[in-house]
């Protein structure tokens, strides 16, 4: 990785001198490689990937999980419904930095371990997020592709169908459907939310298809004898994949908030199972006396949603063909510090130019 970066940041190869920075950057590389390199240069996205992976491992390995009836135990000693004797008045026993104690996140008023409950809640949120993202992306791509490719009557009908879903806010539709399936658990909720959350993506994909289908490469494929399915999936879709990936990521980050909100108002996941939103609802009355009951579930929602958002931002930057940022410029804060320091030293040298190349 570092090898790649140094290669990118020192484009001083004499044979390339005649090219602009953008040309040098993408010269002789496949689309996939360019996107991957740009993505890995986005520090926020990279850090978020690592944080998300660690969270995922922690959440799934700690309290164990149930895979199609197969119970896989975790390394944490308490279950999320087990009531134990109250230790330390239920206060968190975690002494910074590494002395975790018996109940690092504390206990609630009947002695349930908050760490186990938050882990279980985060599992549920992740299940909803992944299912929602997968189903919404699949439906959105299919509907948008068909509408954009065939146009005419099919387009009309599919877009009216989309309007049907768009009329009502997703949280309100989700509440009605969640009331029906909420008791069935996270997987059912994720599927139901996915079935109503595909509309935005469908519109975007339709727009992409409408413009891409008029391009020469589609005509070329048709002349070469490619069938409709092949044109849609092998020729047009790969060109629209940036839009799909980016908006799916953003959909997923909203999914976790929607699930939490639904559980909070009582239409999502219901007791005895737990979800992060439901935990916050359950413990909001205890906020002044036992704030830790309230802090942890919220913190995990934010961490997961924030990571997904940053990854989405990194992907957006990576897929944007107009991205023209100078590789290897100093960071903005360092520039500002240098600027202030320079002024105080009295040296009137011109400050390092702000990298506003994108505006040229």
């Amino acid at each position, binding site marked *: 990785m570092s090898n790649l970066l140094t290669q990118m940041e020192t484009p001083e190869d004499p044979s390339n001198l005649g090219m602009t920075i953008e040309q040098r950057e993408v010269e002789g590389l496949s689309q996939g490689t360019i996107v991957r390199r740009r993505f890995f240069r986005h520090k*926020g996205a990279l850090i978020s990937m690592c944080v998300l992976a660690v969270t995922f491992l922690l959440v799934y390995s700690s309290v164990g999980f149930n895979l199609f009836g197969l119970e896989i135990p975790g390394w944490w000693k308490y279950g999320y419904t087990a009531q134990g004797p109250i230790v330390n008045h239920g206060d968190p026993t975690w002494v910074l930095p590494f002395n975790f104690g018996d109940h690092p996140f504390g206990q609630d008023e009947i002695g349930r371990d908050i760490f186990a409950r938050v882990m279980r809640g985060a599992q549920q949120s992740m299940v909803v997020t992944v299912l929602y993202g997968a189903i919404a992306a699949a439906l959105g791509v299919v509907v948008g592709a068909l509408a954009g490719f065939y146009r005419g009557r099919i387009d009309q009908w599919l877009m*009216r169908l989309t*309007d*049907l879903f*768009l*009329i*009502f*806010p*997703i*949280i*309100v*539709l989700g*509440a*009605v*459907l969640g*009331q*029906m399936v909420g008791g069935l658990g996270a997987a059912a909720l994720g599927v139901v939310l996915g079935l109503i959350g595909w509309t935005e993506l469908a519109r975007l994909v339709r727009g992409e298809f409408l413009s891409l289908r008029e391009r020469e490469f589609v005509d070329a494929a048709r002349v070469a004898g490619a069938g409709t399915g092949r044109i849609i999936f092998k020729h047009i879709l790969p060109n629209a994949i940036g839009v799909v990936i980016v908006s799916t990521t953003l959909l997923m*980050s909203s999914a976790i*908030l929607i699930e*939490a*909100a639904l559980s*909070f*108002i*009582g*239409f999502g996941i219901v007791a005895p199972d737990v979800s992060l*939103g439901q935990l*916050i*609802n359950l413990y*909001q009355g205890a*906020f*002044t006396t036992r704030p830790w009951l*309230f802090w942890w579930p*919220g913190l995990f*929602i*934010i961490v997961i*949603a*924030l990571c997904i*958002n*940053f990854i989405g*931002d990194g992907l957006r930057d990576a897929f944007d063909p*107009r991205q023209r*940022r100078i590789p290897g*410029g100093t960071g*903005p*804060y360092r*520039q*500002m510090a240098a*600027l*202030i320091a*320079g*002024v105080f030293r009295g040296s*009137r040298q*011109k*400050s390092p130019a*702000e*990298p*506003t190349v*994108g*505006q040229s």
Partner: protein
Amino acid sequence: MLAFIIRRLGASVLVLLVGTFVIYNLTAISGDPLGDLRGSTAPNKQALIDARIQALDLNVPPPLRYFLWLSGLLKGFIGQFTLGNSIGGLPVTTLLENSVGNTLQLVTAATMLGIIFGVAIGMSTALRQYSGYDYTVTFFSFLFFSLPVFWVAVLLKLYVAIGFNDFLANPAISPPLLIIMSLLSGFIWMSIIGGEGKPRLIVFGSATLITAAILIFLLVTDWFTNPQLGPVLILVLGGLTAVMVTSLTTGLTNRRALYATLVTAAVGGALWYPLQFAFDALPELWFLAALGILAIVVGGAIGFVMGKDDRWVAARAAAITGFLVGFLLIIDRAMAAWPAYVQAVGGRPIATVGASTPDLGGSLWVGMVDSYTHLLLPTIALILISLAGYTRYARASLLEVMNQDYVRTARAKGLSERTVVMRHAFRNAMIPVVTVVAVNVGGLIGGAVVTETIFAWKGMGALFVSALHEVDVNTVMGFFIIVGIITIVFNMLADIAYTALDPRIRVS
């Protein structure tokens, strides 16, 4: 245009019909509307169940019952409009009447402020792309985007409401805190205004000093317990407003526009004294609205008279100034009611639940302050969430536009940066933002469902949540039909706004 609107409305009505049919059936089968009665121990349980079945036609299967509900809607044509009765026996129209106003009040304030601040912040970050300010705002907008609204709300209740109330009981800022706040403000202004080297440091220094001076002034005059603007401050703030409005709309080089706005501000300041009597003599809302319109007209007239060559431009700038100065005058009068209000609510002015203090009494002004203090927390919660989205969209779309050829042409013509940004880039950058706003209005009402639950706000969202828990189909449908209509109307307004912003787009 008219044909477009009619066609669009026709299609929307069809979609709305199908949508309500589906929702009606889903809601009806989502639970048992007799659940609470079945579990009751009342001696006349069976009679109660029969009565409810009779009242709500529960013996008719849901798909057919939908048409009974729809016929109530269609009877609107013969003057017998009804949305049916709720489970409690009240007409749904009455329930909605009481709650729609509350929700709209909440959502309107949050939307307007969210759009104004979101677009302003987003544009300023786009103009300072890749600066420390840009990165900081980007990080915070992602953070706000990832915040669950109900979680923020509880934090706001604890820290903002209780903390601020404690502060108001004994308003004092310790000197170190004052210095830190001033430095922070200086730093923020420096990063927004930008520039290089020495000018940057001058901005930092002056912003720090101004903030410190304002804070000290507020503390010394005991402003927090007895807030007021008074004629002097109104003149000063009015003058500042005039300069800012002029520099944004016409540029300070247009002297006539600058003098026109300054005169408007001066007229506003001069009217302060007579208005004190008018406010007390006519404490009515229509009077305030009339005053606002009058301010715009007077400002416009002053600008028109003084503008000479560029009448309409000066008139516009002066009208905006007039409106803002009128706003300052009203705020000043509302502030005068503050001590009375604080006393009436027992020294804890920032409310955490509900839309108004029951049995408050007092004048219009006390009532006004009361609704502001109740609106404060839910509005902040809703703004924080929607602000992030608008910031991102405004930034992205302005960046896109600033790369266009016509912006380069405008710069090459030698136009000032202000003209390029405000006149050439801004309008085009607003097109995508308008779409997002229209789509978000529906979503914001969805978000209000959660916010209202936390703040015990008796609006449509709270009505919907309790109705859905009780499987009260008619009430749920009343909520849906209003949300659906609002969404459709706003989407159509967005289409119409496109043509206003970009004459190349023709609807039809």
